[in-house]
């Protein structure tokens, strides 16, 4: 079988009220190539969004994930498919990790009916229930109690004493101050729910730096009496190993855990934010140079395996071509524009099928819809 590689990353973890996992991971070339490809696909997809937004084929709020790819990728590598995942509006890449396609994401952003959410949701709202992915939620903080409810359900459905599927709720450093998160943590701890409170600390909530929004910048200690773990969120392996550790803990009925991912967003908050008034270009450049999650994996491949620059370049080229093709296919679609698409899926039956309503009032009531 394939040669195993040991990668050490001392200092990647800081624990609060609990043990630090060992700062080391076993991996191999295939795995690293997979992470590389996944993350590079995410990166290209987000850059494509940026371009398309500028070309006005995408509109509304659009929040990009570039810089944070190691988190989505590492979490997915650590979790099982039965585990539930919910996140904020910064969700394109999680949608991808959880069963989505580049075409499905881009088509959605272009408002096409073959978009992943049929053009209903746009950038902020992706779902994939089959893959245990529950959004793509637009209201800051709100996904965290909801995520805790996923954990509640996972516990509810698991026979007492057996390991439970877990739930992870991702949110930002800005969101971390929301009171409903504290309320959820309290209930998760009281009821020992298999819940991971996962803060993607990218240092800013919109234009507000963490020191201006939180009196406590050690986010992993925010659970107070709840154990926490801070991890290097730019290193897919530290994310994966750390998350395995956390998953294990919470799935065993020990109660929730608070995770802080130390990360950075390259783009502005959303497409309307240049992202350079509240932080300077040097800071961004330094991040890209020293902590880029894709470069990290690339370097591992070059240093620890027989992968060559050319091999990686070829993969990049393939990915770029795939994303470009997906973008073309996305563009080739057309937006939903029928009355059926407008009024469908407001109410569902138990099988998830649309239930037409007796009367849906339209702006001109003479055009109102009757079932």
């Amino acid at each position, binding site marked *: 079988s394939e040669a195993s590689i040991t990668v050490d990353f001392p200092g990647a973890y800081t624990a609060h009220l609990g043990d630090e996992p060992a700062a080391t991971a076993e991996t191999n070339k295939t795995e690293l190539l997979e992470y590389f490809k996944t993350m590079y696909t995410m990166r290209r997809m987000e850059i494509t969004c940026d371009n398309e937004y500028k070309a006005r084929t995408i509109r509304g709020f659009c929040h990009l994930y570039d810089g944070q790819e190691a988190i989505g990728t590492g979490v997915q590598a650590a979790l099982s498919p039965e585990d539930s995942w919910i996140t904020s509006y910064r969700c394109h890449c999680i949608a991808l990790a959880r069963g989505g396609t580049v075409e499905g994401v881009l088509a959605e952003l272009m408002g096409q009916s073959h978009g992943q959410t049929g053009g209903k949701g746009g950038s902020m709202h992706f*779902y994939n229930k089959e893959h245990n992915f529950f959004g793509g939620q637009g*209201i800051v903080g709100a996904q965290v109690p909801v995520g805790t*409810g996923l954990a509640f*359900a996972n516990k*509810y459905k698991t026979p007492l004493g057996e390991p439970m599927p877990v739930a992870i709720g991702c949110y930002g450093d800005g969101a971390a101050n929301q009171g409903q998160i504290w309320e959820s943590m309290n209930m998760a701890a009281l009821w020992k729910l298999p819940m991971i409170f996962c803060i993607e600390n990218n240092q800013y909530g919109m234009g507000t730096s963490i020191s201006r929004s939180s009196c406590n910048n050690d986010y992993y200690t925010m659970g107070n009496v709840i154990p926490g773990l801070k991890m290097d969120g730019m290193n897919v392996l530290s994310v994966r190993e750390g998350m395995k550790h956390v998953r294990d803990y919470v799935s065993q009925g020990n109660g929730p855990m608070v995770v802080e991912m130390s990360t950075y967003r390259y783009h502005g908050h959303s497409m309307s934010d240049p992202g350079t008034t509240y932080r300077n270009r040097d800071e961004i450049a330094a991040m890209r140079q020293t902590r880029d999650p894709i470069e990290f994996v690339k370097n591992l491949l070059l240093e620890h395996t027989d992968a060559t620059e050319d091999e990686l370049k070829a993969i990049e080229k393939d990915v770029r071509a795939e994303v470009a093709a997906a973008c073309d296919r996305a563009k080739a679609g057309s937006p939903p524009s029928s009355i059926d698409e407008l009024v469908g899926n407001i109410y*569902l039956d138990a099988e998830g099928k649309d239930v037409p309503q*007796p009367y849906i009032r339209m702006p001109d*009531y003479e055009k109102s819809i009757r079932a």
Partner: protein
Amino acid sequence: VDVTIREALNMAMDEEMEADDAVFVMGEEVAQYQGAYKVTKGLFQKYGERRVIDTPITEMGFAGICTGAAYKDLKPVCEFMTFNFAMQAIDQIVNSAAKQAYMSNGDMNVPIVFRGPNGAAAGVAAQHSQCFASWFSQCPGLKVVAPYNAEDAKGLLKAAIRDPNPVVFLENELLYGTSFPLSDEAQSKDFVLPLGKAHIEREGTDVTLVTFSKMVGYCLDAAEELAAQGISAEVLNLRSLRPLDRDAIINSVKKTNRLVAVEEGWPQCGIAAEICAVVMESDAFDYLDAPVERVTGADVPMAYAIPLEKMSLPQVEDIVAAVSRTTERKMYGVA
């Protein structure tokens, strides 16, 4: 048999919990304390702490938790001690529950019931007396239900729990202890009432009283008084505020040619306002022999003192007065 509303609601939850392990009850004091108003009495003893769950006083949090549990196909009955406190959680109800089916293009069911007492109680002043019927009824994606009698309470709550969509279920504290008959049919475990359908509580020919919740009783009393005056009033119990049973309203108006809409909540943009608008934009308008009348709560915050409280709420005499105006009045022909 006669049962109280409290008992009817309790039976509904009990039967549905027995029938479906996915159903659970969560809220403040619902378990060990047996419910602040004892509506969940006995459920904790019967179903245990897995399925009957006391929460901290954190409405936003537990409403969100219930919603998330519903995303995963559980069927939460989320009790608010009163709907006044649901304001803290209203973002979860509207944004995390009501809109999700649509936003996910049908990927996600949210089979949840949010229930608890709504509107005025007795002597609890402004912060504890608000009616949220119109707010919730405005939101597509929600169903909104308001029972009046025991059959409503049982049949509609069972239907709400079984419904695969989010339902806001508005009870009335002052009715919890009131007894109503429960027919043989309604005693069955299979008894459900359809959501979205109004019910004619009393047939009549001269005027229609459209209303919901506690005011159904007031309208029945008014109809009694009116009968003595020779006026035959039809009382339409809406039961559902969303979907609103437009056809029932329209058909009744076509029969009686007069309409009085009655509610306890504040007037502006209330349910009665919507009923005026529904009539305006349907052919029922042409059947009207008088303008639609509203009888509503006064446009003031609820005061504590009894006389002020009484002045703030519709009384039977207000309903009778409104009916009298509609029956006395003739439309000015225009043509």
